């Protein structure tokens, strides 16, 4: 098989992969406004569990594929001012909207009308960005651009060591979260 798959076959895969993603987001309950907002209030750790597990599982697999020459890395440039400022706006917006772009789109499909209004807001945000792009590019994106750096480049710690570290952090943090959640959960009645 010729990789990467392109053309019409890729478009079909886009629909299939997207479909799987949408199912996973819904089944993971991250299409629920309450779950997302409560994550930022530290009352519900579903979002963190989903994201962190995805990063560790995904990262280890992609690292292996990368070493086998089957998966190129393509990291976004570390334009430190743009990334930091953008992330701050994003984080605030995510709590006010109650969704991120992906979960918001998926939430519309589950019946969330306020997610739909927020989607219109996202379109407005996209238009505003395109209109302000020249200015942002000149004054923000160009500042402190470190290029396509990865954590192993910056720290000298190799890829595999990073994933051992992340997996260890995940296990410790998740174990602690599970213990906290078990304590605050009401006792289930005997079956």
């Amino acid at each position, binding site marked *: 098989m010729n990789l990467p*798959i392109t053309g019409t076959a*890729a*478009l079909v*895969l*886009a*629909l*299939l*992969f*997207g479909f*799987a*993603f*949408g199912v996973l*987001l*819904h*089944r*993971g309950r991250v299409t629920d406004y309450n779950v997302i907002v409560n994550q930022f209030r*530290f009352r519900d750790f579903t979002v963190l569990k*989903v*994201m962190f*597990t*995805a990063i*560790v599982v*995904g990262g280890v*697999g*992609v690292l292996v*594929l990368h070493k086998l020459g*089957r998966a190129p890395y*393509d*990291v*976004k440039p*570390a334009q430190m001012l743009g990334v*930091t400022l*953008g*992330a*701050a706006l*994003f*984080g*605030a*917006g995510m709590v*006010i909207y109650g969704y991120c*772009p992906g*979960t918001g*789109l998926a939430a519309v*499909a*589950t*019946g969330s*009308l*306020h997610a739909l*209004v927020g989607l219109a*807001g*996202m379109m*407005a*945000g*996209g238009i*505003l960005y*395109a209109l302000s792009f020249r200015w942002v*590019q000149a004054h923000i994106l160009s500042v402190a651009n470190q290029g396509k*750096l*990865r*954590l192993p480049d910056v720290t000298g710690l190799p890829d595999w060591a990073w994933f051992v570290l992340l997996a260890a952090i995940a296990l410790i943090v998740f174990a602690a979260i599970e213990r906290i959640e078990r304590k605050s959960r009401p006792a289930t009645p005997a079956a």
Partner: protein
Amino acid sequence: MTTLHSPTRSILTRPWSPYLVGAGIGVLSWLVFSLVEKPLGMSTSLSAAAGACAAPVVGMDEVARNPYWARHMPKWDYGMLFLVGTFLGALASAVAARTFRLEIVPTVWRERFGPSRAKRLLAAFAGGILVLYGARMAGGCTSGHGISGSLQLALSSWTFFLTMFAAGAVTAAILFRTRAGRRER
């Protein structure tokens, strides 16, 4: 707990462990990285879609002339179809689980801000503006940076993840504080 329903039905209807879902997304990323050499991403295509929204108003020529949209022209490409797929997948899952439900004012919002629909929708719109504007300034969202970039150990993406989380936590602390200043349990 009653076990009157068959196992297949309960897999279709009940929510899944967040760890399993996360692992599923991880496996999905193996597929997309190796088969089509793309990340899992939403915000790039959504901003191209914004161009499609602007086109009926200013004309497609104006959109093509815009320095940002010139690089991210709205078209039915891989990214756009991934968005469509995501929508359809969530819809199918909600229908299968019978959790499809029209919602305007969610519980956590209502408990803090009351039942006003106008208030909720205004906040949703404003939040939506910030989310996509911020995502494009940062170069990605929770999918593109948060998952796809972080799993590649990208400096930009981990910066995004941690900053996003901190900003969100601060916003939530401000937005959902009670009048007494103490969080109700």
